[in-house]
């Protein structure tokens, strides 16, 4: 993360250091396109995004259509992935089930990243009592797995898509703030900050225009890492019955609705949504891994 600091030799003279974002060559991010792991991850992600957006139009059946005469039917030519307890087509539900998690998880991550970056910048740059108090609060939130805290608040507030986004975003805020704070601390001793202060720049301007561009790679890595955990959290909450609510097709919720019949041998109800979640998580991780490698040089 320190590779984004000012190059001491070729760094611009003090007067312009304030304006020129130092060393953020676009060429570095183009390296991503040469990484097979990144391309594979993006391909899987793109597949699910297409399913999420257009799934309704090419799914073989309506994901909500029940056929109570053909419940728990094994995979066949008519229903490739079989049918669930209510006789709904599992393939269609897997295709359309991509929709909600694919906007809830990124929005929650985005919210957490924006708030966390702001908090981390202030904590790291101002330091002092604010940093001390905020750090304690951050640690208290971190003393529990994110899933548990999210669970507690969503149970209390009642599940809805908006609650999911807000709660997960707010829980990610301290996690991201801590990473950003650490990155800011590494910047704080560098020469460009006193230079900016001498130019008469205020704290808000310095944080937003001087420090932020330099910690942006760390923020980006944190965003992709957190996106994986957001998917984990949304899927888990849905599985516990407090995430995306039925009858909306959703992988986690569908597993929750059908896992009781798994011991009876009806594996297709739950296995296919489970594999869908696994593939989405793996895709995000392939992207994360590449972004991390490139950001760290």
């Amino acid at each position, binding site marked *: 993360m320190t590779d984004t600091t000012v190059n001491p030799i070729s760094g611009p003279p003090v007067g312009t250091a304030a304006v020129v974002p130092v060393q953020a060559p676009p060429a570095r991010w183009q390296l991503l396109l040469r990484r097979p792991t990144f391309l594979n991850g993006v391909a899987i992600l793109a597949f699910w995004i297409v399913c999420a957006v257009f799934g309704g139009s090419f799914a073989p059946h309506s994901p909500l259509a029940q056929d109570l005469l053909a419940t728990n039917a094994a995979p066949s030519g008519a229903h490739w992935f079989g049918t669930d307890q209510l006789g709904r087509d599992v393939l269609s539900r897997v295709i359309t089930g991509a929709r909600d998690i694919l906007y809830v998880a990124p929005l929650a991550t985005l919210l957490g990243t924006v708030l966390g970056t702001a908090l981390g910048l202030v904590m790291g740059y101002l330091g002092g009592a604010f940093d001390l108090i905020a750090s*304690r609060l951050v640690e208290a939130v971190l003393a529990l797995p994110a899933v548990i805290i999210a669970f507690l608040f969503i149970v209390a507030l009642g599940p809805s898509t908006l609650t999911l986004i807000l709660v997960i975003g707010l829980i990610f805020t301290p996690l991201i703030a801590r990473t950003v704070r650490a990155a800011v601390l590494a910047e704080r001793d560098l020469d460009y900050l006193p230079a900016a202060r001498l130019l008469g720049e205020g704290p808000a301007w310095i944080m937003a225009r001087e420090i932020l561009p330099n910690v942006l790679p760390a923020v980006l890595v944190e965003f992709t890492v957190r996106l994986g955990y957001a998917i984990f959290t949304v899927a888990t909450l849905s599985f516990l019955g*407090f995430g995306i609510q039925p009858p909306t097709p959703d992988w986690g919720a569908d*597993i929750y609705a059908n896992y009781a019949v798994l011991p009876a041998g009806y*594996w297709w109800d739950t296995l296919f949504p489970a594999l869908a979640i696994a593939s989405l998580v793996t895709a995000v991780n392939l992207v994360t891994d590449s972004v991390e490698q490139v950001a760290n040089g």
Partner: protein
Amino acid sequence: MAMFLVRRLGLMLLTLWILSVIVFLAGQVLPGDPGRAILGNFASASAVKALDEQLGVGQPLLNRYLEWIGGLLHGDMGLSYSYRTAVATLVGGALLNSLKLAALAFVLVVPLGIAGGVIAALNAGKPLDRVISVAGLSAATVPEFVSGIVVIVIFSTGLRWLPSGASAGPGAGDLTQFQHLILPAIPLVLVLFGYIARMARAGTIDALAADYTRTAALKGLPATTVLTRHVLRNSLLPTITVIATQTGYLIGGLVVTETLFNYHGLGNLIFRAATAKDFPMLEAGVLTIGVVYALATLGADLLLTYLSPRLRPAPRARTAASTAASAQASAEAAQ
């Protein structure tokens, strides 16, 4: 050292206190009537009112918090809405069950994770390393119920080797209980494997690049001796922290695993409390996880300080290194 211990304990208590406020407030958000929740829909309005008064529902928030926290400190976690018995008894039994499952997962994952990390480090940058790293990261972020479904489909409904439920039933022998716990342990192992392997890999890579390793190799020591006596000894310190801090996470991950496998542990208790809107039980369960986590982190810090002279906090100038190391370790453990 004593000073360090006191400060560390103080921080832990402060964290737990803030946590108790958060948990308490979450329980107060819910609009609803505890008296009605306990007595059910058919109870008379006067009975509900009497119970509400007894529970102190109308009192100011601060009074209720003080009463709740005072009870907790005396081991009184309140009365479960849905079971109408003391929460403390329910939590105690459930915690014991969870610890059994967690212990099994630990015994399996620690050697596997360390071996995976060391193998990846020895092949750093090669395909095997990337496979272990990406697979570990994916396993760590695939929700437990997903891998749980896959192992049930393969080993229970498919091959019929193991039972799909975790509870062996009353009066079952130790061996039967053990058999029932194998499948539920696997998702936990998969989630933890990634973290432990990652730390072991990073530590080993650092140790491999260190001067003492080169010296040992140049002395002509056999490669295995260099690895076991010089590299591993140093590389596994941060891993120990991660392993210890993962205890708390493990207990948290049990909510999902225990629900899927229908095992009566702390996680399942929290799940049932949530579904029944049984807030005293939910709050007690969540706070118990917080306490277990705090104790595990404390234990990890003390163990690390004891094992590594470099991290002992006495000389002022070196504390930075110590905080950096523990911050890194806890960052790894954040989930």
